[in-house]
């Protein structure tokens, strides 16, 4: 079984987690009206043989969504980060909407 090093809870079995799909696809802004952008986000996947960034949620634990880098060839996990920290870094200090 996969063992995932949760940044909050430590090394845990994968059955404490829920898989959440490809984390490498960029979600369009919530008000993006472009159907092509949403089509690519929802349906287009690279399916790499090698490192794959994917979402996992520690549902039976801290409930944080994580971004896990997993090698699809051997299930070796290269990194685990809190999704919230990663996404906050990507969109730095956007003022909350009024």
């Amino acid at each position, binding site marked *: 079984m996969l063992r995932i090093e949760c940044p909050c809870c430590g090394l845990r*079995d994968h059955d404490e987690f829920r898989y959440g799909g490809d984390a490498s696809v960029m979600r369009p802004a919530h008000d993006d009206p472009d159907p092509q952008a949403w089509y690519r986000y929802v349906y287009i996947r690279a399916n790499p043989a090698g490192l794959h960034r994917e979402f996992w*949620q520690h549902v039976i634990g801290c409930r944080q969504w994580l971004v896990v880098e997993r090698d699809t060839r051997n299930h070796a996990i290269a990194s685990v980060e809190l999704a919230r920290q990663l*996404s906050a870094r990507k969109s730095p200090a956007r003022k909350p909407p009024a």
Partner: protein
Amino acid sequence: MSSNHKRLSMGGRIDREQPVEFTFDGRSLIGYRGDTLASALLANGVTLVGRSFKYHRPRGIFSAGPEEPNALVTLATAGKREPNLPATTLELADGIVAESQNRWPSLAFDVQSVSGLFAPFLSAGFYYKTFMGPTRRAWMFYEHFIRKAAGLGRAGSDPDPDRYDISQAFADVAIVGGGPAGLSAARAAAAAGARVALIEQDFLLGGQLLAEPSDSAAAAWLRQAEAELESSETVTLMKRTTAFGIYDGNVIGLVEQRDPTNPQLAGEARQTFTMLRARSIVFATGAIERPMVFSNNDRPGVMLASAARTYLNRFAVLPGKKIIVATTNDSAWRAVFDLADAGADVTVADLRAAPPAALAAEAARLGVVVRAGTHIVDLRGGHAVRRATLNGPDGQSEASCDLVCVSGGWSPTVHLTSHLGVKPQYHDDIGGFVPGAFPADRFGAGSMMGNYSTAGAIEDGHRAGTEAASFCGKSAPAPTPSKLDLGETATALLFEIPSVGRGKAFVDFQMDVTTGDVELAHREGYESVEHLKRYTTLGMGTDQGKTSNFAALASMATLRNATIPETGATTFRPPYTAVALGALAGRAIGHHFKPIRRTPMDGWHMANGAEMLEVGLWMRPYFYRQSGLDVNEAYVAEMRSVRQAAGLMDISTLGKIDVQGPDAAIFLDRIYANGFAKLPVGRARYGVMLRDDGIVFDDGTTTRLAENRFFMTTSTAKAADVLSRLEFLLDTAWPDLRVAVTSVSDEWAAMSVAGPKSRAILSAAFPALDVSDAALAHMGLLESEWQGRALRILRLSYSGERAYEIYVGATAGEQLWTHLLEAGRPFDLKPYGVEALGALRVEKGHVAGPEIDGRTTLDDLGLGRMAGKRTGFVGDVLRRRPAFQAPDRQRLVGLECIEEGKRLRGGAILFLPDEKPYGHGHGRVTSVTFSPERGHYVGLALLAGDVASEGSEVVAVYPMKAETVRARIVSPVFLDSQGERLHG
């Protein structure tokens, strides 16, 4: 013959003070503590122990370990049968009742063996040809006979009376294999400071050291190593434990057998399945001796040379008096010397033209006849070997024998290391496959790495144990390993198949695969090892081809005129040895298979005649039993009571989510298709969420408790998914929104009072609260306390009637439930179950799970107006894609049954009246109910828009019951289309 007549009077690792009674095929026999079933049978002179899979040939005991292909037995005790157990690994204990397999009417006389009736049908590729070729029809005729003839043991059909446990374990260093390499690795890793788990499938530690005489230096070394490990606080010795699989994350699947000789453990789990998580693993799994291939090499009395030595030295059994040892290498000579020393008349047939002189000299001293450049061509003897035909430099000759020991060299046990994709690589110098490069956290030691000498294995184990501990950051200096040199000579272990006689020459004993089958596969083009395996069923038995793999490979390599590495090796997969399903299930059987969720009012339901229904993990009241009514009558009576007076429903299973934060309103505005930003404090709103692809995800109501605080309910089924989805969006898409979501599903008990008298009931139940329409309008909220617990009353309706959802702290749920029933008694308040709940919503045209099925859009469900022209919510863009607007898109309609005395059924397929009812039709019925209001069956359906004109007819076809019924397309709202009853 006397009991234990093949047992020696001295030596061995058996306790002659502790005799053990057991039964084999109805015969009562005696063995000793320390025996396996196989050694006890051999001691009693039992050589014939089973019949083979396809040809029903007589078979005996071939090995002394888990690689056993032949001696598979069924343990049969009261109420229980466990088939296909290798007698060679069954620890002998009092009361074992074993049966041989695959024979009829008896082991000694088997009808199918005598007639050979099926042999022509059972060559390689038989199944493929029968299924694929022109003889397919013949299968129909033969299947019955072949199914009866094939197959090994028969499992019992009663529930397994034994208990199993599952445990979780952790270690720094796990060491698989308790032979010299594993013991040495364990000592080194423990000395370095690591927490060590040493796993050994046998009930004794020692591995091949157990084949050494019990008074030897090897035995002394073993005693010392075992004592040292036993006294170590950081070492866990796991005997009787098989590592059957290696999984990601260095997780090892273990099955531990209960010690059958310890009566104090009688009530404990028969087997324990342990998932051991190790930071590093040392594989010290040893090697398995290879058979030799010649005609009739499967006869009872043919045995691996190392097994014969094990039976002699470990179990004090001399399995033969006149023995031929056929070998290709030095290792079998150790058996030769020990067997000769024990008094047997031994002849060595060594395939090599010139065996080492030192071996020949020792043989001469012991009076052993040495025949160099010689191999066995054929064997005779039915239930036991009698004569061998040898072929040597001087031509063919005959020799009588009662035991034939064979050694075709050794194959490192690379099964486990292969499980995670470490490919075996062929090494010429040892003539076998060893694991390829390991990842940093896995190590190999001893003969599984081709390091065949005991001294080398001990050194190698020490190195691997030290490195594995160091990987875990434990590197306290370890003392040098105590040495043990048994003086094995390391010679190349060649493998070849010399000329064979006319009889069948087996490569896979358990699956009855012969050299002829391999030739046939080659001739028909199945040359790749993976094809060979599937075409001939080679290696597919319960032994997973542990002894057969290499012989088959070598045979195919010869036919292809290729080298062994060119021919390749098949992939090994878990489990290494057969695992009882009961062990994997542990205690999660019967009603423990999955958790059961019960609402706070569950006790009341059970005590008051509720028929309960499993809904996901929840137990919900299906309907309440009333005098003599079946479910169909009962739910209609419950519907009537809601429509005419009032009903009380347990809705505690709804998902409940607390949404808080300065941006909570913005958040809800984005996740719901309809707007929530402007929802006033103290008001509730029905909302629908979409997925990113524009399909409806879930629906429910959300109430604004305060400016920055909302109370969301979800459907029962989607409660977990919705919460996870909200968390996903907050964590990944909108980390700038200051919102927190928390499940409060279990904190609240919830119940719904529905019906025209519901307000009067509330007034009676809560005299201190103002529940007038002015104070609590439709979609309004009233917050208060009841009996010291938080109370929320929402005026919401699912049934179409005036109704209230009442939430109270979960611990007061049952108390409030009975209080409401009491207060409602004068108003005829009756509890109702999920069947009536579903029926009420169908009558009202509300969609639920059967319609929100992961394929429907807002427009499909007639809810398009909820979103209107809004944008900027989840699913907004893709819900407008052209395909979702196609004219034949299936949309929600109402159906009413127009045939007297007939009914609609959920799942029925819809056709036009003049159409042949064939194929998928134009849509399907999703939900149905008998409507007391209308007096006939009504239903909701999804029907193609291009044929769905209101007022026209369709035919609902239900092939499962061969029913066809006419129905009229109508509005899905069957009752009170103006919504007046909400205020009634």
